[in-house]
């Protein structure tokens, strides 16, 4: 119970304080000053009452009471007037004083019962108006006062004057007044309380009004600030209210709505709408069916799009009007349209791209593909979505593709060369690049797969053409190479490789001549190529080289620049044709011409000689026939024999000449098949044939046994020895020990066969002449001067050479000749 009271009191106090606190400061001050005023008035009034009480007291035995009172009054006064003192203390001060006064008065008047009631009532009041502490304090004080006064009274220290009319006694009056005052104070306090309550109630009301105003202003602000145009119309069709936005949206002049006529504004508004009739009809329809609410969208002539909400305004159950809300949704509509367009653009673009575009989730499953995928693979989007991306790869390569996809998902690979497969099993070579990204807010892989069929085809075509060209270049019998601007080889065909003695192009490609050829050759080539590379000139040249087999080759060709796409010189191409055979043919032709010329000259000389030398014996014959006739006529018979002998000699000479000319004409061609013969054997045979001639002169013949075998026309070769031996025998002169030596010595290129005699010798100036046709050094010697010409002819026909060595007259001669060795 106590607790409840306490709680109640606390609650009250808190409530009070709260309310106090919620009061405006001016009200609080006013109330405080009122309370202070009352308490101070009560105090002053109590002091006066106390002084008068004591003044009128019959006797005051207990004089100590006086200072006690004075001290009490001073304390209370102090409490009352100290501004810092709590409200309770200040209120309690005068209350206690008045209370003491009343008690004193009551005891004086002998109304102890009333005093006791009062003493009990006071703490109750105190408790009621203040708090528990004030109650206990007041109760304690009441008990003390009761005890003190009771004790004073019973001990007679305080006595009431008998016979004194208390009704006239100013003390009584005063104490009665004090009681009234107390009641008044209590009333005041009660009034104060009530006033306070009243103030609070009023304040509350004021607060409510304020809140309502705030709310209204808020509503108005919202009403005006809203982006929607709002028009409220009552059930009669007049405009109740509208906001500024409404006017702005429709550009309605203010005077038009000032009249509160909805019809005017409706007409004005309808003018601006594209479908005015429909708009007006709809409005009419809504008005015709007051229960209906509706949302519409309509387009204005200026392109804006409005949304219209129509709502009924109700008051309780009664419909009091209609609210029209207009919202400009142009931007939204446009944004939506833009978004849609953008989506369409994206789709169009996404699907138009000729690459296959895949969107994969982080598990490698297909989320999205473009139309190209469907088109190229021949399947529908639905067939692919949700499938692992591996399904687009050929089954036999799916393991490889899976590895790559895993690496891609891990961000370790971004390239996949595995081909894709169409629904009907055809493989398309592709190159796939992958980019990690996001799709619908989740990590995804974007695969861009490019169909490289054409590229492959181009590559294949290119490769085929390159190979074809390569084959052509390699098949050509020429030496073909190309170099870049720095002189590095970039192409070398088989022949070029062969010439350089390498077995593959790789061995020379990238190398300069300095790395391949000896320095002087490289320097020569570099010098040749400089103007080709620098000025674009063509360099033509003929040259020779020795191939790896040691064979000399002649080549003719040129080096020309080649240009890049921009027309700049990028390098040079060299093509050299092997003209060795041509050269050989030319050499052969020249040799043939020389031979022919020589033959011609010989023929000329032959003709000349024949005409001369054949004529000579004729002249002799004719001449001496003439002399013979004269001799006979003149009888000079001794001359006859001489003349006849000369005639016979001439005739013989002529026959010999004819025979030898025939012989000479034959040896120009080899009539017998070539065979390998031993020169030693041949020499012996020849010596046998001219044995008579040799023996006549007593010539000793030494033939070396080790002469090499040769291949040729055996009878002709024998003739060589025969002629030389005969010649040697003929020109022995007066040599007492004629001797001929046949042997072989080593010459510069081939063995030299010699026939050496110790005869008359030949002076150096005539050594060449002896081989000439009909050339004789000795006019009177035997022979026609044809023998050595025949020997020369035979040796040369066999491909050899012949010459004579002699230190001069009387020093002997050595005829030397070479013959090709028998292989």
């Amino acid at each position, binding site marked *: 119970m106590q607790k409840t009271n306490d709680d109640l009191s606390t609650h009250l106090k808190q409530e009070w304080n709260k309310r106090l606190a919620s009061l405006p400061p001016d009200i609080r001050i006013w109330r405080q000053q009122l309370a202070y005023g009352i308490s101070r008035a009560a105090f002053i009034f109590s002091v006066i009452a106390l002084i008068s009480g004591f003044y009128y007291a019959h006797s005051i035995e207990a004089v100590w009471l006086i200072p006690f009172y004075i001290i009490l009054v001073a304390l209370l006064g102090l409490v009352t007037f100290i501004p810092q003192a709590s409200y309770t203390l200040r209120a309690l001060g005068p209350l206690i004083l008045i209370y003491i006064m009343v008690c004193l008065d009551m005891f004086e008047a002998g109304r102890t019962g009333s005093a006791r009631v009062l003493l009990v009532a006071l703490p109750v009041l105190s408790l009621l108006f203040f708090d528990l502490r004030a109650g206990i304090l007041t109760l304690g004080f009441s008990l003390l006062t009761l005890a003190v006064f009771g004790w004073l009274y019973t001990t007679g220290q305080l006595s009431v004057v008998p016979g004194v009319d208390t009704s006239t006694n100013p003390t009584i009056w005063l104490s009665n007044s004090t009681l009234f005052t107390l009641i008044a104070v209590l009333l005041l306090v009660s009034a104060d309380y009530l006033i306070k309550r009243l103030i609070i109630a009023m304040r509350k009301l004021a607060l409510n009004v304020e809140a309502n105003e705030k709310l209204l202003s808020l509503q108005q602000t919202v009403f005006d600030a809203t982006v929607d145009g709002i028009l409220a119309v009552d059930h009669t069709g007049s405009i109740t209210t509208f906001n500024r936005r409404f006017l702005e949206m429709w550009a309605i002049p203010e005077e038009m709505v000032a009249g509160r006529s909805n019809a005017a504004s409706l007409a004005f508004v309808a003018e601006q709408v594209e479908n005015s009739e429909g708009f007006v009809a709809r409005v009419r329809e809504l008005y015709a069916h007051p229960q209906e609410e509706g949302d519409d969208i309509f387009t204005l002539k200026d392109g804006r799009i409005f949304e219209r909400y129509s709502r009924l305004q109700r008051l309780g159950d009664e419909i009091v009007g209609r609210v029209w809300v207009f919202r400009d949704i142009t931007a939204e509509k446009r944004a939506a349209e833009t978004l849609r367009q953008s989506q369409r653009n994206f789709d169009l673009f996404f699907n138009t791209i000729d690459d296959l575009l895949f969107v994969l989730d982080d598990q490698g499953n297909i989320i999205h593909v473009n139309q190209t995928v469907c088109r190229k693979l021949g399947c529908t989007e639905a067939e692919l979505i949700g499938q692992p991306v591996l399904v687009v790869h050929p089954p036999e390569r799916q393991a490889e593709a899976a590895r790559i996809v895993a690496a891609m998902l891990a961000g370790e690979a971004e390239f996949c060369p595995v081909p894709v497969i169409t629904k009907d099993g055809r493989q398309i070579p592709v190159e796939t690049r992958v980019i990690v990204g996001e799709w619908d807010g989740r990590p995804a892989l974007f695969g861009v797969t490019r169909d490289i069929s054409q590229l492959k085809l181009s590559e294949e075509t290119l490769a085929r053409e390159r190979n074809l060209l390569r084959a052509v270049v390699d098949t050509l019998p020429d030496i073909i190479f190309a170099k870049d601007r720095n002189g590095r080889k970039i192409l070398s065909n088989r022949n070029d490789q062969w010439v350089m003695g390498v077995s593959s192009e790789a061995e020379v490609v990238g190398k300069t001549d300095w790395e391949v050829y000896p320095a002087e050759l490289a320097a020569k080539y570099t010098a040749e190529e400089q103007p080709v590379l620098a000025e674009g000139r063509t360099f033509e040249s003929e040259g020779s080289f020795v191939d790896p087999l040691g064979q000399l080759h002649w080549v003719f060709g040129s080096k020309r620049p080649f240009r890049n796409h921009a027309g700049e010189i990028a390098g040079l191409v060299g093509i050299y044709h092997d003209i060795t055979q041509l050269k050989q043919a030319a050499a052969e032709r020249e040799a043939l011409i020389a031979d022919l010329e020589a033959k011609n000259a010989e023929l000329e000389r032959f003709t*000349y*000689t024949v*005409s*001369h*030398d054949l*004529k*000579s014996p*004729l*002249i*002799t014959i*004719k*001449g*001496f*026939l*003439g*002399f013979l006739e004269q001799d006979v006529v003149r009888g000079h018979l001794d001359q006859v024999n001489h003349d006849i002998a*000369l005639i016979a*000699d*001439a005739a013989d000479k002529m026959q010999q000449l004819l025979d030898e000319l025939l012989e000479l004409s034959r040896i120009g061609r080899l009539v017998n098949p070539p065979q390998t013969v031993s020169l030693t054997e041949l020499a012996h045979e020849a010596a046998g044939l001219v044995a008579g001639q040799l023996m006549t002169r007593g010539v000793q013949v030494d033939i070396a046994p080790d002469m090499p075998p040769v291949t040729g026309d055996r009878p002709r070769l024998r003739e060589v020895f025969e002629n030389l031996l005969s010649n040697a025998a003929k020109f022995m002169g007066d040599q007492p020990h004629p001797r001929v030596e046949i042997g072989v010595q080593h010459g510069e290129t081939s063995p030299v066969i010699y026939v050496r005699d110790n005869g008359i010798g030949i002076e150096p100036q*005539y050594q060449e*002449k002896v081989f000439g046709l*009909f*050339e*004789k*050094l*000795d*006019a*009177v010697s035997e022979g026609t001067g044809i023998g050595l010409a025949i020997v020369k002819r035979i040796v040369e026909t066999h491909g050899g050479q012949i010459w004579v060595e002699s230190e001069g007259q009387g020093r002997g001669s050595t005829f030397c000749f070479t013959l090709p060795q028998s292989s």
Partner: protein
Amino acid sequence: MIGEPLIVLLVEDNPAHAEMVIRSFQEHRVANKIYHVLDGEAALDFLYHRRQFSGPDVSPRPHIILLDLRLPKISGLQVLQEIKKDENLLSIPVIILTTSEAERDLAMAYENHTNSYLVKPIDFAKFSQLINDLGLYWLAWNRQPW
């Protein structure tokens, strides 16, 4: 001129021909003294008095030279060249007497300043007549400063 022997140098490799010339000269009594050599080398030796002709009066300066073209060792043309190169010898008339009718020989001979070019006729009568006329012309009619 009368009383002074006329000297002829005959360069002829064919002894039979030489004899024919000599006998023809004798027949017509035009030449007093004929010196016969067999080849070109001997002819030059004679003119320069060399080798076997080195002795005094062995090789007098000839009044005319009869020169065959085809000769052993040194040809007639070479001999002609040598003679016409030599200031002392170039004034000696050189008469080519040959069997060759070749144009080249003829041209070469005149190029080398031959004084005359005669082809030996096959016919004896003509041969004889030629030698006779030759003797008359060169040794009788033709005047020489010496």
